[in-house]
């Protein structure tokens, strides 16, 4: 019997497979497809303090092996989330991670403070890397100092373990990861989407109303694996890897590159039960390869 469990230190997961923020709704959308308790956990769509409208449509465009989105964090806000959604999630026996957003450092902290009072949240994933809310795709994760300040501020008020989610739109991912760790983040997750654009040549307009959006899906996997590898070798906290994972083989690339757990994003749209399939396939792969504990593979790539 293969042991799929993962111990992040601050959190034990049943399996290394989590569903990624923004691609799993509030979790409930996936209940018709399988028992969510099979998951290591899932990350709730990005949550601001107040409800948000998100960006104007069109918000999606498909590209070769990729998807660009400019959702812009449409969401219900903390109050409605805690009143209406969290109670439904509380019955689940899997890690519920909330993706915490903010217009500025204060708002991140306010969201964390508000959520502190509610049961059933396993960790916060600090989303300092969304390319879809500020002008030109800017975000705190593009700068080690801004990263440090934001993480620190949330860390000070938060009574829930903290994961920091990084942006790939940087020159030096390692310096940002180290800043997050230094500020007290207990894990690093990466990558968020890559800033991208597509043009409708017939209309001579950007395909997204927002002009720019974030690229996800198989197209970005090689960039994500590289960054996970770089970060995992530099930090001492666990790393959660993502970017284009569609299969157990993809997940294993990230695990071998140094990810203690992985998140599956865009693939959930194509096959709503893909996380379940990945978990089963990981188990089979491990059995066939004589691997007793999946976490023995973390960072095992030989160089």
């Amino acid at each position, binding site marked *: 019997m293969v042991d799929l469990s993962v111990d992040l230190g601050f959190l034990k997961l049943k399996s290394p497979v989590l569903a990624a923020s923004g691609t799993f709704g509030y979790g409930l959308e996936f209940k018709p497809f399988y028992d969510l308790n099979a998951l290591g956990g899932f990350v709730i769509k990005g949550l601001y303090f107040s409800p948000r409208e998100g960006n104007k449509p069109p918000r999606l465009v498909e590209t070769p092996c990729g998807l660009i989105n400019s959702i812009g964090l449409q969401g219900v806000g903390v109050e409605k989330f805690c009143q209406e959604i969290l109670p439904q999630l509380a019955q689940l026996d899997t890690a519920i991670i909330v993706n915490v957003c903010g217009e500025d450092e204060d708002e991140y902290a306010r969201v964390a403070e508000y959520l502190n009072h509610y049961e059933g949240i396993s960790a916060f994933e600090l989303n300092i890397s969304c390319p879809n809310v500020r002008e030109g795709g800017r975000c705190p994760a593009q700068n080690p100092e801004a990263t440090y300040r934001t993480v620190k501020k949330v860390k000070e008020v938060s009574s829930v373990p903290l994961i920091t989610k990084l942006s790939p739109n940087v020159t030096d991912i390692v310096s940002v990861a180290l800043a997050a760790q230094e500020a007290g983040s207990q894990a690093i997750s990466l990558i968020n989407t890559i800033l991208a654009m597509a043009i409708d040549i017939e209309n001579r307009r950007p395909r997204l109303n927002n002009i720019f959006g974030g690229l996800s899906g198989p197209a970005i996997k090689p960039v994500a694996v590289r960054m996970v590898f770089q970060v995992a070798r530099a930090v001492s906290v666990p790393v959660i890897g993502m970017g284009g994972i569609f299969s157990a083989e993809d997940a294993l690339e990230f695990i071998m590159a140094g990810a203690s757990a992985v998140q599956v994003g865009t693939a959930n749209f194509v096959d*709503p039960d893909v996380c379940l399939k990945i978990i089963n396939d990981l188990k089979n792969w491990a059995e066939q390869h004589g691997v007793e504990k999946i976490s023995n593979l973390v960072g095992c790539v030989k160089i």
Partner: protein
Amino acid sequence: MLIDRQARIIEKKSWGNYYLFRIESPEIAGRAEPGQFLMIKVSNHLPPLLRRPISLHNAENGAVEIFFQVAGTGTRLLAEKEVGSTMDLLGPLGRGFTVEQKLKGQEVFCVGGGRGIAPLYFLARKLKKTGAKPVVFYGGRTKEDLPLTNKLKELGLEVMVSTDDGSAGFSGLVTALVGETLATRSPAFLYACGPEAMMENLAQLCQRKNLPAEFSLESIMGCGFGACFGCVRKIKRNGQPSYLKICQEGPVFGLEEIVWQEKENG
């Protein structure tokens, strides 16, 4: 809503760019309602990455039908599938058309433009069963765009066709045909599916005539079941207009709910 990964194509017809498949999928067929749709995996390889939304054109005897037009890579790959091969379907999805009992005995208009006719066949069948008297308006650019005319007539319905170039039926836009017809007849309800401009014009007509109506909207869809927030449009439902998910709260919306000017970016 469920996934049928082994839905088998049992019949295929085509007319130029238009295709009709009959696909064995008992569980989806058993739950399907007119106006709902499927998310179809058009290929086992990438790309395309995402499934494609296609309306339920019919559901009977354990099979569903789809009727579609080749619009790009995804629909082209779909069109290449042959009888006997299997498809991966997710559905039925979304909220369909409202068919109230009080329409019994009443005349109702179903207006389809081009591929927009797809869900109206299924709807007309249901309306007939309810005892309503559906009149189908079917518009296209030219007579090649109206391959379903006979199929609709075989349902025993009144079918009025229009072509922009006058090659069949009424010469002009289907909205003009509906407008003329409304001068002499007073249906109890109007249902429509087709190009955005057609539906917007019909909405104006309905408003002027105080005719209740429902429209099936389109949007680019990431998932089809509410997870991605990609498909939103501005909709007035319980108060202020806000971005609602077409895939979950629609694709069918009432006349008063839709904010047409919110076309944004072509």
